[in-house]
């Protein structure tokens, strides 16, 4: 397996970069934050992204997508990470569409995936219930009743929860709280009776919500995947999400590093450029090395998703390598970026703080470095 971008992927990356630079600078996110925008993403920008085909990047042609693979979606996420673009790309395209594609029936895929490509349908995956990501620890219940199920429970950290038309809810149809068996996924309309959604204002100014389900009745056709047996498929979906978010983090950390490097070459103290100080040079060189490792980890994981010969176990290992490494280095780079900027790095007026805030939220999302090191060790039998 090669780790070099194909010609097509490189072209896509270049055009994504040009688009993001021109249309979606960090000031767009700042504007959404300052105006307390209802949607939390720029709808005009999202329409343009839809026109560029970004929503159908990894969706098969049979369902209206462009079948450009996760390698393609990955370079788009990386470039959108450079300017901290807030859009439905992660919740709807990366996680939601993948969940339907991996677990859905033929009918569900034919009906819903084309709506993702066109932008009619926004999705949100509701999994976490407590402050830490523990995907098998599910308390939300789904009890069989009449011709369907009744759902009860609470969810937190639901990305795009307040703008989605449909929620993908992870619930338990049987088993004890930590069992992998008994986990099922349901498609729930956001406006169904008993669903209440409260937007959370997050430190990174991106969208997130708390969700409560009170006797929400859904039909049996809303089941996504087999009843009680969705954990394996869910794990693959989460791994796709982890790898995609790692790609986004890669873009953000590279940009934070580039901004910092520029600053080291401009700021003078004691009559010289501060970039000439060895105390800063070595830390910059170490960050560069860590970012190079991140790049390789993200590439390998993305390409593995598109490689039909790779098993789910191999993908799982690469996903945890990527998410553990990226979460660790994103924290390092964003902390150093603020420190190396000195006082100006602490001001809201300057952009670098946005990168630190986003780094923390992205690190925690779908498992932080500690979660993924623990998972990596378990996967490798120690």
């Amino acid at each position: 397996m090669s780790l070099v971008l194909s010609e097509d992927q490189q072209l896509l990356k270049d055009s994504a970069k040009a688009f993001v630079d021109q249309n979606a600078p960090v000031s767009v996110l700042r504007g959404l934050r300052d105006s307390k925008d209802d949607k939390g993403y720029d709808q005009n920008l999202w329409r343009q992204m839809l026109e560029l085909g970004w929503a159908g990047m990894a969706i098969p042609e049979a369902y209206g997508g462009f079948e450009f693979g996760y390698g393609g979606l990955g370079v788009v996420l990386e470039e959108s990470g450079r300017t901290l673009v807030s859009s439905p790309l992660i919740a709807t395209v990366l996680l939601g569409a993948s969940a339907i594609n991996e677990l859905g029936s033929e009918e569900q895929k034919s009906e819903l995936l084309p709506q993702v490509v066109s932008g009619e349908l926004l999705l949100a995956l509701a999994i976490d219930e407590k402050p830490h990501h523990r995907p098998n620890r599910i308390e939300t219940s789904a009890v069989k009743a009449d011709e369907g199920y009744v759902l009860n429970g609470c969810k937190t950290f639901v990305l795009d929860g307040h703008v989605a038309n449909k929620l993908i809810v992870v619930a338990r149809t049987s088993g004890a709280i930590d069992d992998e068996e008994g986990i099922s996924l349901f498609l729930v309309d956001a406006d169904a009776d008993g669903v209440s959604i409260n937007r959370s204002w997050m430190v990174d100014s991106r969208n997130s919500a708390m969700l409560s389900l009170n006797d929400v009745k859904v039909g049996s056709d809303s089941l996504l995947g087999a009843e009680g047996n969705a954990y394996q498929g869910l794990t693959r979906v989460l791994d796709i999400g982890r790898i995609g978010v790692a790609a986004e983090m890669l873009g953000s950390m590279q940009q934070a590093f580039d901004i910092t490097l520029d600053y080291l070459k401009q700021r003078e103290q004691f009559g010289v450029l501060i970039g000439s100080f060895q105390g800063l040079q070595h830390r910059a060189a170490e960050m560069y090395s860590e970012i190079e490792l991140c790049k390789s980890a993200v590439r390998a994981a993305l390409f593995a998703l598109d490689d039909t010969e790779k098993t789910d176990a191999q993908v799982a290992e690469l996903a945890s390598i990527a998410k553990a490494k990226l979460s660790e280095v994103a924290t390092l780079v964003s902390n150093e970026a603020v420190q190396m900027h000195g006082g100006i790095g602490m001001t809201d007026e300057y952009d670098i703080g946005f990168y630190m805030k986003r780094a923390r939220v992205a690190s925690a999302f779908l498992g932080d470095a500690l979660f993924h090191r623990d998972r990596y060790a378990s996967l490798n039998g120690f």
Partner: protein
Amino acid sequence: MQAIAQLEDFRQETRAWLEANCPASMRTPMVDAEVVWGGRKATFVNPESKIWLERMAEKGWTTPTWPTEYGGGGLSKEESIILSQEMARINARPPLNSFGISMLGPVLLESGTHEQKMEHIPKIVRGEIRWCQGYSEPGSGSDLASLNTKAVLDGDEYVINGSKVWTSYADKADWIFCLVRTDSEVPKHAGISFILFDMDTPGVTTKPIQLISGMSPFCETFFDNARAKASNLVGGLNNGWAIAKRLLQHERTMISGFGLAGSQGDRGGTTSTMDSVERAAMHYRGDTDKISDPGLRDEIAQFKIDSAAFALTSQRSLEESKQGQGPNATSSMLKNYGCELNKRRYELLLSSLGSQALGWEGEGFANDEIAVTREWLRSKANSIEGGTSEVQLNVIAKRVLGLPDMLSLVQK
């Protein structure tokens, strides 16, 4: 690119030849004592290793891609990949370990004259001459260009005076490739030359240095009016710094390979508990399903993840350099990271083995436990030799990141 069919023929021929010519014991995991370094004083603990070397050298396959004109194998890149795949298929040992192959040969092929290549390359290919590297001096470590060993022209010979330190295996080597000062009047980088001479030359003496690990792989080397033929000066007078830097790139690539061991979980096909840090931890702690100390478990997982990402980066760097898009100082980055990883590996082995890793010799400690202790001590040199980690970080800051160079301001 060669035609697929042609390459497939080559694969079949190579497979048949290796099948017929690689002795049985050369298909078993390498043991330290049987590594072949060649040279006039070569020893062959296992006689089959001599036969293996001779057969491989005859075909030029100790240096598969070097030109046949100088005794090399003359293989294309694709063919040499096939050869290494076929050797790996039968677990064939490398026939020859040599600084001549990994360091001197490549620069000699790039910058040597035809006569120099004719004189030295075939002997490197056949393992007849063992080379050592005369770079560092007692007063010139990280600041290598400040070196002081002088070479003064006298007729058609240079007279050399001075001393070198950290010369790997100088006491076992036949010839030395050596940096000498040929001009003291110009800036320090501009007055250095790269010269080759015989270690048996009158006036050359060596003295092994005992290290903290108890081993003595390095020597001090002294030159007292030692005479070297002027025709063995490589790359032109006062052009030695350029040659030295080229050679260091080859050396760094070799040393960064150390870091790859951690991700592969083995060292040259042997199977010992020590090959995998996590297995060692579980074995010495008496754990069955997982490492019972969560702190150690997390550190080992982090080490393994970094090793995997490092191996992927080595692969990516190789692929990108083939396409001509690799950053030019990746070798510094890889060298630095690889060495630090190897040091981390031994620190973790020490934590994993507990007091069984703290023995020096004698009863109560198995050979592989003592080896861990000694290798842990040896690993400390990884981030010193071939340019310290701090020097590598300077190189990255300056060459890759384009940060301003305070050192050059100070020296002006």
